């Protein structure tokens, strides 16, 4: 099958959709830095802080996943070849 211009545009769109990861990366970085500061200030509560940080990161991750899902849907259902 020939690849058409529409296929190329779909691929570009999928690439743009995955850019949602940028915001998630920044957010997870902020939460990790907060966790590091909290451990530095209060080393006894390390376990609780780690759990809290990982939960926050897992919730923040969802926006990146929406972008990834949109990219996958574009690639696997819209492309003709």
């Amino acid at each position, binding site marked *: 099958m020939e690849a058409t211009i529409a296929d190329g545009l779909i691929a570009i769109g999928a690439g743009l959709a995955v850019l949602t990861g940028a915001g998630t990366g920044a957010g997870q970085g902020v939460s990790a830095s907060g966790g590091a500061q909290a451990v530095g200030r209060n080393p006894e509560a390390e376990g609780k802080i780690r759990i809290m940080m*990982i*939960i926050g990161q*897992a*919730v923040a*991750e*969802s926006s990146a*996943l*929406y972008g*990834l*899902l949109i990219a*996958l849907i574009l690639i696997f259902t819209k492309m003709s070849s």
Partner: protein
Amino acid sequence: MSAIEYYFSQQSEQTMNLLYVAIFLAIVFVVLGKYIDRQEPMKRPSKIMVVIDMYYGFITNLYDSIYKGHCKKTILPYVSMLIIFILTMNWLGLFTGLSAPATDYNVPLGLALISFGFKYAYEFKYVGVVNHMKGYLDPVAVMLPLNLMDIIAKPLSMSMRLFGNLLAGSLILAIFYSAMGGAQNMLFALPVVEGFENPIFNFLGAIVAPPLHFYFDVFSGVIQAFVFTLLTLIFSSIGLDFDDMDEKAKAKQLKEESKQTASVS
């Protein structure tokens, strides 16, 4: 085609795997229940019993920190089951090689809908249908469309989180294995047969993949199971006013006590 035939013709591989998980867990829990019944409380507990106790303590702490002891008979069994159920689903691919059930969107969507069924049941019971409907006009009546969108958006985001994590993990592992197969073919200059681009014995992937499996299956599976359970607890308790419920329960108790004393005297 009859309705039952149609139902089974629509089953995907993942929903069948979900059925295997459910049957497996049912057997495990029947056996464990018999085992717990046979324990003697005055003797030293066995290792399995200690693990069960720890799990119970963990899940009750989590529940108490959010629900403050309310609705214990309905939400606690569901939540304590949910975390094991999602964990088993996520680890299924690691231990048996079947595809994880949560990579079919119907499975997380169903779980999220059950969780939100709890939310609306509690709100109708403890807040009242009229007050619940008034809540959609909160804080001003202009917010109504946004509040109505919230009904769909919350279960959607909750199920999409589980689905997306599992799908991303399984896809990345599949791409990685096929890349390792290609690398193995190139490294050892094996002839590529049409239709068998991936080598049958992919030992390069087997050497390099375990850390990825550790992250995407073990770590991500635990985190997602925990987060889904925590969000179930938080979302279902968000409309409930526990102080108000406490006061009502106390008033009811006082009324009953005064009734009893009146009947005695």
